[in-house]
């Protein structure tokens, strides 16, 4: 086999998952189109995908989707940065002080499953009807998984790696930054990913509930006008925010920890 043929096969292997994923999405849309057009799925509940695609132009131009998209993205980014800083720091502090961990870990775990979104009236009173209410709701609801996975990551560091550090006479800070933290990174990133999912759901949900800015409000507006293709098109933009976040996060993770 020639070198060029080998590199072609290798490139094909690299792109195969993306092509397969895209193909499955197209197949799903075609299936939905067929089901709606044949009347098996009610078009007043799910509009045909062709109508959703056709509504993109209208939603972009008439509904100022980009400014809303940027607002939701900025809110998610702010909440993401906050939850990374405070969540990881919280996890580290709780791991450092065993009593604190024993006292609070169950509460933090319970908080992860609590419907914090229902506390939005309280947040409205505290922060007012602005982006900070939305950001704080996203941040608070996303904090538990980051804290819990950080604790899990640090606690799960293999004993022998800690002993290697001790054998080299590392200080407490060196032990943390050079061994515990990098060893915990895969778990921390799992926590951040989960946190971002929680944050995005809550941010769009609160935008929807308090009818303030962003894609959530747009979905609310379009749904109230019974513009179903537009509503689904706006949901596609929410998915785009999520995709952008996860792609960025993956790049950061690869940069921090090239290989395991």
């Amino acid at each position, binding site marked *: 086999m020639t070198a060029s043929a080998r590199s072609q096969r290798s490139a094909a292997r690299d792109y195969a998952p993306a092509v397969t994923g895209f193909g499955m999405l197209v197949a799903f849309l075609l299936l939905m189109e067929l089901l709606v057009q044949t009347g098996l799925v009610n078009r007043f509940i799910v509009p045909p995908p062709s109508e959703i695609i056709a509504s993109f132009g209208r939603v972009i131009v008439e509904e100022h989707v980009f400014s809303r998209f940027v607002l939701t993205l900025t809110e998610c980014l702010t909440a993401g940065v906050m939850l990374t800083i405070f969540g990881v720091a919280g996890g580290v502090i709780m791991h450092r002080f065993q009593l604190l961990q024993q006292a609070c870990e169950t509460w933090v775990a319970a908080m992860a499953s609590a419907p914090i979104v229902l506390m939005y009236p309280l947040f409205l009173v505290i922060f007012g009807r602005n982006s900070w209410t939305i950001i704080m709701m996203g941040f608070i609801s996303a904090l538990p998984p980051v804290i819990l996975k950080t604790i899990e990551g640090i606690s799960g560091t293999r004993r*022998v790696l800690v002993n290697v550090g001790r*054998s080299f*006479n590392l200080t407490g800070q060196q032990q943390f930054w050079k061994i515990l933290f990098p060893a915990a990174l895969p778990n921390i990133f799992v926590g951040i990913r989960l946190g971002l999912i929680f944050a995005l759901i809550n941010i769009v949900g609160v935008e929807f509930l308090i009818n303030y800015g962003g894609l959530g409000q747009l979905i609310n507006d379009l749904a109230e006008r019974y513009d179903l293709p537009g509503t689904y098109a706006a949901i596609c933009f929410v998915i785009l925010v999520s995709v952008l976040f996860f792609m960025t996060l993956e790049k950061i993770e690869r940069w921090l920890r*090239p*290989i*395991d």
Partner: protein
Amino acid sequence: MPASSPAHADNAILVVDNITMRFDTSEGAVFAVDDVSFDVKPGEFLSVIGPSGCGKSTLFNVIGGLLGNYQGAVSVTGETISGPHKSIGMVFQEESTFPWRSVTDNVAFPLELIGMPKETRIERAKHFIGLVGLAGFENRYPGELSGGMRQRVSLARTLASEPKILLMDEPFAALDEQTRLLLGDKVLQIQQQLKQTTLLITHNITEAVQMSDRILVMTYRPGKVKRIVNIDLPRPRTSEIVSSEAFGRYVAQIWSDLREEASRGMRDEDAQALHHKGASA
């Protein structure tokens, strides 16, 4: 009452003096090692061998400074130590490379800690990578290497800190016999090249005889020094020595010392298993 400590060699680089380590368990006090004394001379290769449960790993942790609260003293070049010491470089039984660092960055780790400039430490790391026979793998990550290669990275990392004493705890225990013999050759070659004082903790008789100048045989729990055997095999040695008649005699001699201890250990473990079974029934 501890036995009086034996006379240690004047030029000993490492002196282990009447070490006793006791663990308090729910079933009472357990003596992991009891009154163990020996010394290691500069450039010497000493192995500590004993059956499972004789306190070899406890001794490794005590000498490496990872365990405290023992009776007795450990001193390096006359200085009594009470924790990890820069003169002692440890190689662990378990795989201990940092998976997030490349081979070069793993080996350069101790040099980074002393603040050596990046270019110099990479050069030094490459030297030690070459020494353990991993040239060409500098940019690989541990996850891309075999178990034997990863142990060589750990060895190179420890050697890079230029310890006066290399302390190894069954570093090849998880490897197959052929890899173990070949890595033994590599360790011997490095030890002879660097005149590296080495203390190897092992339960493998072949490995101990292949590499050592002296072998300290330990009893089963509590671990005491049963005998110290001088290995008068010619140097430089390679794994080919395992087929020699003299090698076989040393292996037989040490096994006859160990067999009784290993049998005692097995009987003790069986009795404990029966006791636990009886208690839980």
